[in-house]
């Protein structure tokens, strides 16, 4: 508790500490001033009493001095010293020499403050005053303290009671008017922050029309502003998101188209528009695997334009290209929809025929040969004819790649070439 009071983590306690410290300092200051004033007043009073005392005893002391009654002087001094306010007494003769000196305190431990009252000792002889000396009576601060001690015990007790009552009153008041509302305010702010519920506002249970009420109102206004701002932000965000989604969709569509184009461009031969060598093999392989699984057959036709180098050398590469295109178009028209047709070399073409046995493949190959043989290509006023050689191979149960078919078809193609070209060799 004490530790918390000196190092509080609570605003009201901190304020209380400051106020209480100020109050304590002021109380100490005022009490100190009061004590000092009381001290001065009491000292003055004691000084008056000393003067009266000195005046009172001056006559018997004078008589005793006059009559050299040292015992009486001693007795009077001892009696004086018994007085509660008297701390010492000095009696001097007319030559200011000490006749008697008595102190109630140890001379080695003189009280804090010594003060005195003196009275001249005289004697009337024959109606003439004779100076005998002086009587000095001493008192000290300890006497003053003794006299004011009781009052200051009362003042101290009253101060302790006042401070205690004020302390607990302050604790209650600060808790009631500051700590509790602030704690509730913090709690409600946390709830609002955690719940994120719109429209919720701070509502303190006990709030007078003071700064806390204004703080509550201002925070509620701030929450409203934040909510409005959030709504606007959300709407802007939604709008941006919709725009972005549309843009992304549009872009995605464009990318799909471009992708398709790229895919198409990647799969086709740039000149003839049929499958290029890689695509042809890519598409052929699954068909071969599928036919093996279904215990059916695929056939592979490998075609090569006869003497194509002569065409190029005779008519130029432009015409050669036209021949390739012409061949591709014409052959494509003769093929079925599931058949694969591709350009696998300069003037080499291949056809994969799914679910087609060797005989059917031979027929198709020969049909192509014949169609090519009778066709005439007109290019720049020139009529170009050409022939092709074909090798046909059909799949066998052990084939696991198209390369097997290619090799066997290639052997047949060479046989056709060797046998005079423009023929099908199966």
């Amino acid at each position, binding site marked *: 508790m004490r530790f918390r009071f000196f190092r509080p983590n609570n605003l009201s306690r901190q304020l209380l500490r400051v106020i209480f410290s100020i109050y304590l300092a002021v109380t100490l200051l005022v009490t100190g001033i009061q004590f000092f004033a009381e001290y001065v007043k009491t000292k003055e009073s004691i000084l008056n009493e000393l003067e009266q005392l000195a005046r009172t005893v001056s006559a018997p002391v004078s008589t005793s001095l*006059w*009559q*050299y*009654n040292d*015992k*009486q002087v001693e007795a009077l001094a001892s009696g004086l010293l018994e007085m509660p306010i008297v701390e010492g007494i000095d009696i001097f003769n007319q030559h200011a020499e000490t006749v008697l000196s008595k102190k109630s305190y140890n001379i080695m431990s003189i009280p804090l403050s010594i003060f005195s009252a003196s009275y001249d000792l005289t*004697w*009337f*002889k*024959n*109606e003439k005053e004779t100076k005998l000396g002086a009587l000095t009576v001493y008192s000290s601060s300890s006497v003053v303290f003794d006299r004011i001690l009781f009052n200051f015990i009362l003042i101290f007790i009253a101060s302790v009671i006042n401070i205690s009552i004020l302390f607990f009153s302050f604790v209650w008041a600060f808790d009631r008017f500051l700590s509790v509302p602030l704690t509730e305010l913090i709690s409600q702010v946390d709830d609002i922050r955690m719940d994120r519920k719109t429209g919720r506002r701070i509502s303190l249970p006990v709030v007078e029309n003071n700064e806390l009420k204004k703080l509550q109102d201002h925070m509620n206004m701030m929450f409203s502003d934040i909510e409005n701002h959030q709504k606007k932000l959300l709407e802007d965000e939604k709008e941006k998101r919709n725009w972005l989604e549309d843009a992304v969709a549009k872009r995605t569509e464009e990318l799909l188209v471009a992708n398709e184009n790229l895919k198409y461009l990647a799969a086709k031969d740039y000149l003839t528009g049929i499958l290029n060598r890689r695509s042809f093999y890519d598409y052929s392989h699954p068909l071969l695997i599928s036919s093996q699984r279904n215990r059916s057959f695929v056939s592979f036709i490998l075609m090569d334009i006869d003497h194509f180098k002569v065409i190029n050398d005779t008519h130029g590469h432009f015409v050669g290209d036209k021949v390739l295109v012409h061949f591709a178009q014409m052959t494509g028209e003769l093929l079925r929809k599931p058949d694969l047709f591709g350009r696998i070399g300069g003037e080499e073409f291949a056809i994969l025929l799914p679910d087609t046995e060797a005989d059917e493949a031979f027929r198709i190959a020969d049909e192509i040969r014949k169609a090519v043989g009778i066709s005439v290509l007109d290019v720049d006023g020139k009529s170009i004819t050409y022939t092709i050689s074909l090798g046909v191979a059909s799949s066998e149960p052990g084939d696991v790649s198209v390369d097997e078919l290619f090799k066997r078809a290639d052997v047949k193609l060479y046989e056709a070439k060797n046998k005079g070209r423009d023929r099908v060799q199966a």
Partner: protein
Amino acid sequence: MSKHNLLGRLFILVLFAVGLGTGRAGYAETLKVCYDQWPPLTIFPSNGSSARGVVIDMFEEVYSAQGYELEFFEVPLARGLAMVSDGLCDILPEYVEAVNTENDFVYANEPTFAYTTAFVVRRDDPWRYLGIQSIKGKRVATGPGWDYSSMSMSYQSYIDDPNNADFVEVIAGYDDVVDRILRMIIEDRVDLYADNELVLQHVLNRLNLHDELQIAFPGLEKKLVERPIFSKKIPAEKRQELIRVWDEGRLSIKGEKESMLLQKYGVKLEDPS
């Protein structure tokens, strides 16, 4: 030694012892003496001196000669009087002569002394007492309760008269009163003081003040007569016997014996009259 000789010696010894016992029963009676301090006439013994004063010495002289033993009680005068009245003391050696039938004591016939009074003045003071008129304007010292009425009614009246208060210094105290008065005379605070001449001599001697002060005669008109007093609690016959012993003894030591006793204390009777 023969048998007869031995018996004879024992008989003599028994007779001596019996005789000695009988004698003590007749003479070794103890008298209780109460006395106060009044040097040099009565003095309390101290560590430095066992002297008891002139009057006590006289008492011992008188009663010892008659086989009495004295037991002393040093007390203030008032206590001594009370003790005599109560019978706790048999004798108080000195008490001022007065006629008072209601006293619980009886005076002896012979006074201890009929003291002459004198004044003490400064050595250079030519003043002398010539009646009460002569002290007017002088500052007179006196002790409280000091009764001069038996010596001079006019002097006592003068001291007691409130109109003379400014010229009368009443000095209170104990055994130092006379000492202080003498010092006051020296310091010119008072001018004169009257007392027993023996007392004044004794104090002047003791304080060695003869250079500053002098005893001035004449003193007061009458002498101060003091007598021993005896307790009425003593059976009358016995009391009369004690008084008789004193009266006879006091008369017997007058003259040279008395002077010797006074001289022991450095004083003498100097009454110039």
